[in-house]
């Protein structure tokens, strides 16, 4: 029997602030446990939260980049539960009046082409701490460095139809958040985390089936794997005439299996109510506009402009806009006078591999443009230019200087070319005779020999006339 898969994701994105949501503690990753804490994030008696204006700004930026409506009034609420990683016994979040709602995000589905996920809401909350099970034998330790780190929770609608689409959506979402400078979205550092909801229904059926939720997935690959596993499990249940039970699941990357969480871990009545320590968050329309104005050009718009403005292929435009740094670099090279299609080849080719190795672009845009000019005017062969480029990534010198130093500048001097030609003609009497007998294709062979004799330094455009002249002149 056929089933339609319905998936919706809840994504937690760490807002890229230097300090926590409600206190001045640092958000730096990887510090020794409990070194970035204060009375506020430890929940000591008498401490009170004061909101981080930058976190609100970044959350609004995230919301606007997702085309959400940012509400002029939103309310912080307490989400109450006991857990050792939660110092106050409640998490400050937003409930019935979130910061923003009703947005959308476009992504490309392999099956369905261009698609869109509705963004139901984006709200601000504080992170909890972390339980460490491996530090002290037989005991669980608590690290509260993360407690109070600002997060945006992005709740997407049930608009995804396959695990692969879930991954494509996450890729688009991460790209957008990085572009908008909301978050570095590093799953390794926990600055992007995913809960996935999945249900199956008959094709054409309007109502949603009973869903399960897979909690706290820590990589895009695991999101896809976990959803595939869970889809197969639900399908087997339904095909056998059974009913899916609404549960929360955890996914083990080691076994590839999902398992239900203990009911104690998930069946909470959170008893939300407005946090009386924090007045309603009131944002003026002018402030919201100012955040909108500071948004950079977002990936989709930039991709379109690269195709129409620079005449690039959709593929190249996609690669170049995959990260803001790459797109910015490409445009900087073009701004230095480089021809766009050639620049696209260089950036997606040599420059990109250097970028991925080093984590940044190693050749300044004006230097790459300079190198391209030397190829354009025939000073360097394309082959030689690649060698020069590799040298430029480490030397920091200009292309011309590197080319000189490596002796890669093409030789166009007639006397020098004549000497190489003479030597080749003398060494290949048979081929010369065949050429003279009318076998003109031998010209290619002889040109190649001249290039070889020059060790690639001869300008191929200059070699042929000299060769023809000398062959005729004998």
């Amino acid at each position: 029997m056929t089933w339609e898969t319905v998936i919706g994701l809840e994504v937690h994105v760490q807002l890229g602030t230097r300090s926590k949501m409600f206190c001045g503690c640092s958000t730096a990753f990887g510090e020794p446990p409990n070194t970035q804490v204060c009375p506020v994030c430890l929940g000591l008696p008498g401490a009170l939260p004061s909101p981080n204006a930058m976190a609100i700004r970044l959350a609004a930026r995230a919301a606007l980049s997702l085309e959400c409506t940012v509400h002029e009034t939103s309310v912080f609420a307490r989400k109450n539960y006991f857990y050792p990683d939660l110092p106050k016994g409640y998490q400050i979040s937003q409930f019935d009046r979130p910061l923003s709602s009703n947005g959308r995000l476009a992504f490309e589905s392999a099956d369905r082409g261009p698609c869109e996920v509705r963004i139901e809401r984006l709200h601000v909350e504080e992170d909890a701490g972390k339980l460490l099970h491996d530090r002290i034998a037989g005991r669980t330790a608590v690290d509260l460095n993360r407690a109070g780190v600002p997060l945006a929770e992005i709740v997407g609608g049930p608009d995804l139809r396959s695990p692969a689409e879930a991954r494509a959506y996450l890729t688009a979402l991460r790209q957008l958040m990085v572009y908008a400078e909301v978050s570095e979205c590093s799953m390794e550092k926990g600055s992007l985390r995913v809960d996935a909801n999945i249900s199956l229904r008959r094709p054409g059926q309007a109502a949603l089936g009973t869903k399960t939720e897979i909690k706290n997935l820590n990589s895009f690959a695991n999101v896809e794997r976990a959803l595939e596993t869970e889809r197969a499990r639900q399908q087997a249940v339904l095909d056998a005439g059974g009913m899916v039970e609404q549960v929360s699941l955890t996914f083990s990357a080691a076994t590839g299996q999902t398992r239900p969480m203990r009911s104690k871990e998930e069946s909470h009545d959170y008893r939300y109510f407005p946090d009386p320590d924090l007045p309603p968050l009131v944002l003026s329309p002018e402030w919201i506009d100012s955040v909108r104005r500071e948004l950079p050009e977002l990936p989709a718009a930039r991709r379109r402009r690269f195709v129409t403005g620079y005449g690039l292929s959709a593929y190249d435009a996609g690669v170049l806009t995959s990260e803001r740094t790459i797109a910015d670099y490409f445009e900087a090279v073009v701004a230095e006078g480089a021809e766009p299609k050639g620049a696209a080849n260089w950036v997606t080719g040599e420059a990109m591999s250097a970028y991925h190795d080093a984590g940044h672009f190693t050749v300044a845009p004006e230097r790459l443009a300079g190198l391209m000019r030397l190829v354009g005017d025939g000073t360097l062969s394309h082959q030689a230019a690649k060698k020069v480029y590799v040298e430029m990534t480490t030397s920091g010198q200009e292309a011309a200087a590197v080319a000189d130093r490596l002796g890669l500048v093409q030789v166009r001097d007639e006397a020098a070319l004549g000497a190489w030609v003479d030597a080749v003609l003398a060494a290949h009497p048979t081929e010369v005779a065949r050429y003279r007998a009318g076998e003109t294709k031998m010209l290619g062979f002889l040109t190649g020999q001249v290039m070889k004799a020059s060790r690639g330094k001869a300008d191929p455009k200059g070699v042929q006339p000299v060769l023809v002249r000398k062959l005729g002149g004998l």
Partner: protein
Amino acid sequence: MSAGEAAREVGQRLRAASRLNATLAWSDAALEAEAARVDAMPVPGPLHGMPVAVKDNIVTTEQPTTCGSRMLAGYVSPFNATVTDRLRGAGALIACKTNLDEFAMGSSTEHSAYGRVLHPLDPDRVPGGSSGGSAALVAAGVVPAALGSETGGSVRQPASFCGVVGVKPTYGRVSRYGLVAFGSSLDCVSVFGRTVSDAQRVLASIAGLDPLDATTVDQPPLETLPGPASLTGRTIGLPREYFPPDLHPGVKAGCDAAIARMKELGARIVEVSLPHARFAVPTYYILAPAEAAANLARFDGARYGARVTVEGDIRAMYRATRGLGFGAEVRRRILTGTYVLSAGYHDAYYNRAQGVRARIAGDFALVFASGVDFLFTPTTPTPAFKAGEKTADPVAMYLADVFVCSANLAGLPAVSLPVGRSEGLPVGGQFMAPHFQEAGMLACAATLERHLDATREVAR
């Protein structure tokens, strides 16, 4: 008098008053250190050398802050409350920490893990609560002023019982940073004084915007106005709901005498109505416990304070710690608060109470918009009651706050001052004012204070 002399004197008085059980932590050494600090101040502050007692739910780094609970026995805060920093900045001496109902939950200071506080005039009676220790010390003449805290009248009610002045500021006037939270939307650090003027000076020193408390409001500094010679031009409203037929005759007589005196001083007296007043106590006893249940969740034995170790998982430790660490009244309120917020009851209790709270505030807004400057009412339905009289009946205890908790629900400033005595026990009258109108309200109270002999037995 130097701060050092003041410190030695207050030390002697604290020792002499120890029978009241009003203090928790204090020491001669700490007092001397306070005095040395004040005497070293290059410029004397407005409270130079004034000893001020501090309720033990306001955190200080020099002494433990127990909140009157076993849960925080010996707990020393690593930071000071904004109000204690400001008191010190103004040149005051922190005299001692004072006993209170556990986590400020109570109206008699009988619910302290460290024993009940005695009424200074009658050891068989309660001083009121929850700030009973602070009230008793001011009434006994140990300190001229003290900090307390109010969630539902916990300064004005004991002020009335003990015969001293108690001022609750507008919500947002004084920082709550360092006040251990009970009902955060209601909590106000509040002030006791022997006179209106002392209370006014202390309040002015601790008031003002605090970046550490997002609910503080930026207002011009609080003026300390003298009481005017007459009350001509002032309109005083008497809400009829606050003068029920069964009001204690001594309380009624004391208030009547005060009203008559205000009339003589030129005030226009009008009867007004606050129709939702009767819902104040039930509304309060839904909202305050709801917030308290969340605020007290942090006392779980995991990071600080008491921990009861038992067999089983962490939930077993939570249960044991909270079951033994909290007293009965605190547990009762946590259970009530958890219930009114739980799924299925949230609308019927918490949401409805929020609606009623808005109506109670609306009543006050209407009355003040009608030309009434201040309201005057009895502070409590009776003078101080006997110890043990209401401990078995929580609702009877809660009704001791019937006239005081509306001001907390509406966020209004209010002051209780002694207006006479009934069978030797003080009777208090209360003014309530529009938001941030403390200066005018206190000036009016100062004028009345000057023209009343509050130690006089009022006719029955």
